[in-house]
């Protein structure tokens, strides 16, 4: 793993290492303190118990030589230093007088001892010139402080113990730090590897390699990020493919009419066609192809405006049945020509808030398709009824139908069931795509059902007032 200045890896690794170090140091200090405190407290407690047991031998009156000797003997056997003090001077008995003497027992301590309480001392004691933990047990005869039993342990002994303990602790701590830092290094590497992979992948994508994918190793946030990245690059790849297809489609769609126009116009210009009726036919062909190009360009413009969100609907309220009625009239001659039976069933109460011209465009697209793919003698049914969604506009034909595998793609731009890209059936290949988008702009839904050879049913659902 390489260190990059300011890299996430470095930051993470430093954070982990610093946390480990701080934790170890803190726990070391705490345990050292607790250990010493517990140990000192334990010593103090045992000294107190020892002193209290010894004090039981005192039966009152001035301290006897026997008691002093017994305690002297005990001192030889005990681990702690034990002695009796019965000098009133040492016990601060002369306190009200200004005696220039450092006594063993201070004024407050004397008061405590007089109250029958043992006194504990911790720290430096000038008399012994060392740090000690000491317990002073009073020997009281009524109110008289006849003496004390002084027990102490040098603190150096405790420090020695804590020294051994801290050495062990430090060694253990150092070993732990090395292991923990190594493991932290490994762990940080594992954590940051997917991020580094993703960075590389993003670089590849930015250079145009949309097929780049990241290996997903975990299910955590980083794993989810990798998954999202893969999804994103897949979408970009698909979009790129669509764009290329679209460009190929557009150029293909434009090339055919241009070739026609070029060919016919050249034929006319060369004077090769002499007959006026032939010339007229060729001119009509040129005009037809030019119109097709105009339509194609208009459809492409519509689509791009809808996609760019610049398409504005001019909505107002109108009775939908009336619009359909008026609109369908212009198809009557065509249908009669094709001997198609046209049946309508329209609910006149349906009032819609929409852009009339766009609704007409929608109707035109689906009607054109129905007439185009319905054979002579077929039937086209148009109905408008109330629906829980709002209203349902249903157009049923007895045309050739759409294969089930093409149904889901039928509204894609330039998608053709007839893959030969024949324009013999007319249309730009953008009609249904535009229709679906216009329906959505009106807050509606477009559904197409079809059975091959039987016919197609186009359902348009609109919200109404």
């Amino acid at each position: 793993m390489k260190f990059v200045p300011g890299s996430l890896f470095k930051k993470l690794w430093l954070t982990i290492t610093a946390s480990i170090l701080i934790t170890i140091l803190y726990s070391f200090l705490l345990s050292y303190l607790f250990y010493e405190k517990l140990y000192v407290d334990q010593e103090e407690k045992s000294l107190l118990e020892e002193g209290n047991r010894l004090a039981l031998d005192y039966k009152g009156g001035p301290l006897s030589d026997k008691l002093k000797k017994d305690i002297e003997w005990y001192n030889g056997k005990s681990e702690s230093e034990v002695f009796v003090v019965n000098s009133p001077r040492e016990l601060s008995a002369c306190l009200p007088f200004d005696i220039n003497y450092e006594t063993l027992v201070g004024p407050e301590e004397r008061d405590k001892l007089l109250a029958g309480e043992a006194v504990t001392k911790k720290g430096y004691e000038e008399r012994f010139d060392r740090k000690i933990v000491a317990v002073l047990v009073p020997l009281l005869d009524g109110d008289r402080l006849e003496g004390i039993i002084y027990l102490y342990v040098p603190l150096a002994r405790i420090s020695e113990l804590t020294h051994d303990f801290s050495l062990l602790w430090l060694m253990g701590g150092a070993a732990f730090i090395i292991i923990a830092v190594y493991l932290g290094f490994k762990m940080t590497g594992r954590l940051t590897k997917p991020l580094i992979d993703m960075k590389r992948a993003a670089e590849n994508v930015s250079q145009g390699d949309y097929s780049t994918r990241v290996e997903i190793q975990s299910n955590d946030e980083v794993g989810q990020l990798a998954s999202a990245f893969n999804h994103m690059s897949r979408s970009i790849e698909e979009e790129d493919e669509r764009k290329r297809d679209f460009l190929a489609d557009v150029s293909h769609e434009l090339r055919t009419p241009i070739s026609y126009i070029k060919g016919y116009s050249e034929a006319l210009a060369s004077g090769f066609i002499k007959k006026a009726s032939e010339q007229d036919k060729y001119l009509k062909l040129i005009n037809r192809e030019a119109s097709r190009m105009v339509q194609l360009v208009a459809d492409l413009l519509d689509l791009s405006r809808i996609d760019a969100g610049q398409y504005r609907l001019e909505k107002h309220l109108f009775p939908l049945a009336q619009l359909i009625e008026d609109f369908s009239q212009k198809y009557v001659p065509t249908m009669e020509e094709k001997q198609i039976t046209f049946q309508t069933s329209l609910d006149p109460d349906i009032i819609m808030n929409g852009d009339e011209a766009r609704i007409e465009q929608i109707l035109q697209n689906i009607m054109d398709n129905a007439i185009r793919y319905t054979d002579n003698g077929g039937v086209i049914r148009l109905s408008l009824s109330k629906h829980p969604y709002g209203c349902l506009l249903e157009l049923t034909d007895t045309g050739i139908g759409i294969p089930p595998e093409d149904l889901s793609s039928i509204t894609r731009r330039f998608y053709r069931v007839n893959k030969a890209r024949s324009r013999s059936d007319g249309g730009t290949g953008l009609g249904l795509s535009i229709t679906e988008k216009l329906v959505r702009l009106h807050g509606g839904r477009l559904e197409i059902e079809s059975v091959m050879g039987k016919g197609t049913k186009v359902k348009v659902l609109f919200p109404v007032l």
Partner: protein
Amino acid sequence: MKPLITLVVFVFSVLAGGCSSDGLAPVAYSPSVIATMNIKDMSVSFIDISKRKNIAEWDVEKPYNGGIILPDGDTLLLYGKTLKEADLYSMKKGEKTGSWKIGKGVVNGLLLSDGKEIVFSNDEGNTIDFYSTKGKQTGQLHLNAAPLTLLESGKGDRLFAVSFHDEKLNIINPEERKNIRSFPIHASAAGAVLNEKNNEVWVGGHGKGSNIEQSIHVYDIETGKLKKQIHAPEMPVNFTKNGSGLFVLSHGSSTLYKLDTNGAEHGSLRIGANPFEVETVGNILAVAGYDSDDIYLVDPENLKIEARIKVGKGPFQIVKGGK
């Protein structure tokens, strides 16, 4: 209107209560009344010996360590080493009536037998200060040693100032404010009594450093010579005398010794806890137990304890009225 009256009455009673709480209990003084200066809780306890009773406690809240009852039989003069002033209290009224500016360092005071003057030993200025009973300084004598214990000869023509720190005893002519002579004595001397019959001054003490004083040192008044030592362990620091004999109190062993004028022991008694003061009051001995916070009344003839009376914390000095 009623609540207002209640409020006024309440406020007045609180104020009045507050004022009276500052006051001290009045004490009807008689020669059988003694006061103890309790230095641990800064109080004064009054005991009527005849009633064997503590009759009043005063929380004076000032570090007084000694007192004198003035000849008027009502004024209690209290002084302390760390205080610049000595304060006067009327026992009858139970209130402070005035102060004398006597300066810091006063460790002992003595009303002279003529009843006209008071002497203070000042161990900061190494002086003996003379004051009239009205509080006017009438003289000052500089000494070569810090005085602590003060004694007056029977005739009143000599004052004895025993030094605690400087191992010296000064003999003073109070009339002339003059130091007659001084002679060296033992270290950490405290407490003394005159045995004029033998021309002796008996001086007690604490002992120097870690040494515990075991004896009374007997010096010849004229020559200053150490005549003998009387064994009275441990740390004899206070004396009193009466018709029954000389009484020595050793605080280290909490023992009261009864001696005759030749130093022979005629009995001893373990008494109190760490007692510092013994005083003859009428025909009884009063002993103050510094650690046991009590006063013992002892029959001087047979050294029997007749009563034990609780006082404030740390009774250090017994104050009694004039003869």
